[in-house]
């Protein structure tokens, strides 16, 4: 298929757009301009199946794929039934046996997932589609997307919705773990930072119950972007339809950012500021921290890195946690870096640790408490960037926080270091359990180096929206998670 055809197709495939005859109800995928039954006089409306659930109608386990799909080995592909339209698609997050009985798949409920279709080699375009489906009774539950009319009341800026996503596949570290990390997430072969971002953003929209056209800016922070030049946020905006739609695009903006592991958290304050700024012309900003955390095979990092993303929507209506205090601290510190064109990051000499992580996190956190005129005992939950399961506990203890305040945010022990997704995901884990009135301190860290420290206060809205989340710990402890060995893990990492 040519690149222009693929580009035009993506506009249909990202949302699984179809057309429906208003007269007879016939549905056509891809969309047609007229109905076969009613003729050219038919009135056609656009529909999409992005948030819908279908059923596996029939299929095959492909063992001898075309060259673009060799990266998947065996996989199940087939025809799905959504209402009265059938769609082709591949089953993702599922590795079938070569001779599995197809009958056991027929009739199972499936949900669309935005995943990589294939890449044109290492230097060509990467193609995505939502015509990839996960089984509804496995790792992903169906989430209904219900738009809630926003409150008329304008509040202090803060978080109005969030969505955390960690992949289904895990690898265990031996014994008690390495630096406190006992197991970690890894991407499936068709996942990357772009697909993580879309999934997290989708969950955030569902959680907020927000019409996506109200989101006028999207920031994606990552240190494992799919492209060196081509923004993930443009794909996220296209798939999630952020901003007012106009022709093939949307009236919204944004940018991808990099600052090691604080590429996303640094933008929290900007997002909160923007929604308060009249000239912005919008009320909502999405910030996503996403990474398929990279580490060279055999490097110490290779035993602590994870994969996943968390998205936040900032606004001023129906806020679940207000952003109350903020301090950032930065210095040029060569603790960790990746040169342009290099596949894996490296540590700079002995800088990691005291002169980098601890110095910046402690400085920012202490200044934040001072500025807020608060003591550690005034905070209910304390979160630190988690390059491993030891550093955040050590740093926050030095500030004066107790184990009870720190433990809920120490999700890295079970999911690994999500780099730019680390603090955002820990925060999601805390928001999942926080009650109205709780205060949350979060101190992010990015090598290079800097720390952003925030204090949030949880509002009553959090309870109203809670049922629309897939709690992080449900994902961490999902009975459908699958453990893999190191060979599989490396293959998945390198596939991306």
């Amino acid at each position, binding site marked *: *298929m040519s690149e222009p055809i693929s580009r035009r197709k993506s506009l249909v495939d990202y949302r699984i757009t179809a057309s429906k005859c208003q007269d007879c109800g016939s549905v056509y995928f891809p969309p047609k301009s007229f109905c076969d039954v009613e003729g050219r006089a038919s009135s056609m409306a656009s529909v999409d199946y992005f948030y819908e659930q279908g059923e596996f109608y*029939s299929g*095959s*386990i492909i063992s*001898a794929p075309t*060259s673009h799909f060799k990266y998947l080995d065996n996989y199940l592909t087939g025809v799905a039934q959504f209402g009265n339209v059938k769609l082709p698609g591949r089953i993702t997050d599922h590795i079938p046996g070569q001779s599995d009985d*197809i009958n056991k798949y027929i009739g199972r409920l499936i949900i669309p997932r935005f995943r990589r279709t*294939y890449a044109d080699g290492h230097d060509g375009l990467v193609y995505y*589609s939502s015509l990839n489906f996960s089984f509804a009774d496995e790792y992903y539950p169906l989430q209904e997307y219900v738009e809630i009319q926003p409150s008329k009341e304008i509040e202090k800026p803060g978080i109005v919705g969030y969505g955390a996503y960690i992949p289904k596949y895990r690898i265990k570290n031996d014994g008690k773990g390495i630096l406190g990390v006992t197991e970690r997430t890894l991407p499936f072969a068709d996942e990357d930072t772009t697909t993580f971002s879309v999934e997290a953003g989708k969950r955030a929209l569902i959680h907020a119950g927000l019409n996506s056209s109200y989101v006028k800016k999207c920031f994606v922070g990552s240190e494992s972007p799919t492209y060196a030049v081509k923004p993930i946020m443009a794909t996220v905006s296209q798939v999630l339809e952020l901003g007012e739609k106009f022709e093939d695009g949307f009236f919204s903006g944004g940018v991808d950012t990099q600052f090691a592991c604080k590429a996303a958290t640094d933008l929290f304050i900007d997002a909160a500021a923007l929604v308060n700024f009249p000239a912005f012309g919008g009320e909502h900003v999405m910030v996503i921290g996403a990474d398929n955390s990279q580490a060279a095979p055999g490097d110490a990092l290779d035993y602590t890195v994870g994969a996943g993303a968390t998205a936040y929507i900032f606004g001023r209506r129906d806020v679940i946690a207000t952003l109350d205090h903020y301090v950032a601290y930065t210095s040029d510190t060569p603790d960790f870096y990746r040169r342009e064109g290099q596949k894996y990051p490296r540590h700079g000499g002995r800088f990691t640790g005291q002169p980098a992580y601890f110095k910046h996190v402690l400085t920012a956190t202490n200044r934040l408490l001072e500025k807020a005129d608060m003591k550690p005992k005034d905070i209910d939950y304390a979160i630190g960037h988690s390059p491993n399961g030891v550093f955040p506990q050590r740093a926050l203890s030095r500030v004066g926080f107790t184990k009870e305040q720190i433990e809920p945010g120490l999700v890295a022990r079970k999911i690994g270091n999500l780099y730019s997704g680390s603090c955002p995901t820990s925060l999601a884990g805390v928001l999942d359990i926080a009650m109205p009135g709780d205060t949350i301190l979060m101190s992010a860290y990015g090598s290079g180096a800097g720390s952003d420290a925030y204090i949030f206060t949880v509002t009553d809205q959090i309870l109203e929206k809670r049922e629309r989340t897939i709690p992080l710990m449900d994902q961490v402890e999902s009975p459908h998670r699958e453990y893999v060995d190191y060979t599989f893990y490396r293959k998945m990492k390198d596939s991306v």
Partner: protein
Amino acid sequence: MSHGSTAKPIAAIVGAGRTKFGELWYDNPEKLLFEAGLQCMQSVDKGINRTQLQAAYFGSFLYQSTNKIGLIPGHMSKELGLNIPISMTEAACASGGSALYNACVSIRSGLHDIVFVGGFEKMTDRANLISDDLMFAADPNEVNAGYTFPGLYATMMARYMYDYGKGNEDCGDAMAMVAVKNHHHAMPNENAQFRREFTVDAIKNSSIVAHPVRLLHCSPVTDGASALIITTPEKAKEFTDDPIYIMSSQQATDAISLYSRESLTSVKTTKLAVGAAMKEANVTYDDIKIAEVHDCFTVEEVMFLEDSGFYKTGEGWKGVYESYESGKGSKHIPYLNEGKELIVNPGGGLKADGHPVGATGIRQVQECWAQLRGEAGGQQVDGDIDTALAHNIGGTGAICTAHILRRNI
């Protein structure tokens, strides 16, 4: 032989030829076509000169992608040394049948009296990428779903077995029996790619390609060419005292995408094209004794038996199973139903004779031509046969051509 049909022929075949099918390492596509064409010219009983040809219609699918050649009319003008109108038809695996359909249109219209028809494919030169190339005949969404052609037919087979087999292992055996039968039929066929017997267990235990389709459920990757010369019925006897008449030539189309079809367990274009061809020729299965059927995957032959009306919907696999059990061991294993007998793919079909996709539709008609004239050699069907059907499918059923041939009119 007597028959009740009063239909008039639309054209007549006065010559036919083909190459061996297989991996033909030393031959280029145009060389294969030349070889089939030469054999075809030489088969004309009373002789024909190439300068008598008024037009030519060719069918091929992958020549541009696999062989990196184009403008076939120019190639063939050079080979033939003629400057006549030459048209090229691409309709995936139905390229050959569609070229013949177009040639028949030309004869029917009165534009031409003597027309050359050829089909060719040279697939093995790019065997490592042929799975990719074949997907040009699929819907782009199917390509992006990671489908292969065996995968698409496996999807049809899986649903067929789910709806009609309902867990009965005999249904799976029937899918294998089609292959066993066609390989058995190919044993005496000197041109066939695979002259080798297989057991049902061997088919069912062959390597998995796209479950539930296994390697030996699939037709092979093949090189080869085939050719026909057709004329008006009135002119036929100028070239032979034994022409084979084309009583009907029909084509039907449907959405390229499997998922857009009304059914995954039948092929609408087979129903339409074969139904129209039988109507045009005014024949039924009381008249048709042999059929060249597009058995690219064994499930397709089972579906044909239902879609063409030989068996009821959902009962094709039972007919295949019972016919195989009662007919195994004989030279040809006919399908049986309420006193009717139908020998399908007497020379081995696509499965064993080979499937050089653009050549297949023409090869099927060439086989019928030879069978009806009693010149099919070792695979000649016993008894006196008068009417034959050729059924050629493109893709997963996006196009189907059906031609009914008769010896006596």
